[in-house]
């Protein structure tokens, strides 16, 4: 169970934004944060990961406090054990595919998981290649596998597929759904792609101007009126 109640003043292209994010997320839920760019979606992910400090509030994950302004608690990203995937892949160019995965291993952790994940993401053939030689879809599969090495409970995806072509997106969405099930993950996806949101998540938080404006099933909260009436007909 994730209990989130955070605020942060952000300054961006459209002036200042008061981000208020207040919600609860159940274990194994797949939640999407949907909204226009500049609404604060990425900042929420970064605050959850410990890469950005909120101005106030608290973050509680499975009874562990990760952040509490009043109690001056701010757990380092290293200790939060989350998996995170950015849009820009972020693979270490000096390491092979296998090297990227092994880098993520914890001290004394068995290397078995590396082979397992290479197989799951169909990267076995590419295990000794450097990231520079891979296609976008392959790179993002490496990033996905790497994010799962430490067996996190929480997977954060910050528009991970927006740089890929549609065919690749569909394939990777399937991978993500598969690992979400298989690893019993709680997954939070940031996306502004309607197709993706509908396919992936059962619950959508619509974030506009720093506030959660809607919270519910994709077809209920997304701006799909035209599409919906068409489907019903």
């Amino acid at each position, binding site marked *: 169970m994730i209990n989130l109640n955070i605020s942060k003043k952000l300054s961006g292209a459209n002036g200042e934004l008061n981000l208020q994010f207040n919600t609860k997320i159940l274990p194994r839920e797949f939640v999407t944060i949907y909204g226009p760019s500049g609404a604060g979606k990425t900042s929420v992910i970064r605050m959850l*990961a*410990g*890469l950005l400090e909120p101005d106030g509030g608290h973050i509680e994950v499975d009874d562990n406090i990760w952040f509490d302004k009043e109690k001056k608690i701010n757990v*380092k*990203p*290293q*200790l*939060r*054990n*989350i*998996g*995170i995937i*950015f849009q*820009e*892949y*972020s*693979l*270490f*160019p*000096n390491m092979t595919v296998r090297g990227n995965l092994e*880098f*993520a291993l*914890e001290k004394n952790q068995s290397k078995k998981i590396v082979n397992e994940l290479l197989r799951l993401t169909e990267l076995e053939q590419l295990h000794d290649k450097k*990231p*520079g030689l*891979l296609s976008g879809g392959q*790179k993002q599969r490496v990033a996905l596998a*790497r*994010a799962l*090495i*430490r067996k996190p409970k929480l997977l954060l995806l910050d528009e991970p597929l927006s740089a890929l072509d549609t065919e690749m997106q569909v394939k990777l969405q399937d991978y993500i759904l598969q690992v979400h099930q298989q690893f019993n993950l709680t997954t939070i996806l940031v996306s502004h792609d309607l197709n993706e949101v509908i396919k992936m998540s059962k619950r959508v938080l619509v974030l506009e101007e720093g506030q959660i404006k809607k919270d519910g099933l994709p077809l209920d909260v997304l701006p799909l009126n035209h599409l919906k009436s068409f489907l019903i007909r």
Partner: protein
Amino acid sequence: MLDFEPFYLTLKLALTTTLVLFIICTPIAYWLAFSRSRFKVLIEAFVGLPLVLPPSVLGFYLLLAFSPENSFGKFLEMHFDIRLVFTFPGLVIASVIYSLPFMIQPIQSGFRMVPDALIETAYTLGKSKLTTLIKVLIPNIKTALLTGCILSFAHTIGEFGVVLMVGGNIPKETRMISVAIYDEVEAMNYHQANVYSSILLVFSFLVLVSVYLVNHGTRKTQYA
């Protein structure tokens, strides 16, 4: 007969200086690249001073500092039996200070070129700042490190003002190639001066060629 001692001494000084610089500059450059401290500007300016100061100014103050007549020099001599003025170790320290920006600046900009997301990814994978520095940052800025080393090495080879002020002109101890050239000209041994100078000229040219080769060859490093 050409005396190769100044060449040998100069190479020894340049190698020692580069090694010392490499060890001390990597952490300083890391701090300068990522710190948000208010004092960063001051440190940056201090580190950059040798770029703008005439070497004789730097040499003069180092000479004063190292001199056993003054407190720092006296302290070293009394407590550690170390004398830095007109000695090889003194020259190394002076050269390190003189070439500081040539090592720090390439490494610092190398660190800045590494995408933040790469560093943050390492943190979210549970890696400490030190592990991230050793396994992610340093291997990905090899070009910058190499450039820093070559530039510091070459800059030390070309020293004159600092070397003369701090080291003087003691054969087999502190008589560097640039000082030897000056000496030969003073003594009107133009042929000798010409031999020394042309070797230095060719050497410096080759160093620069290697810097550009390194840079062109690896500019394509891609962050995936």
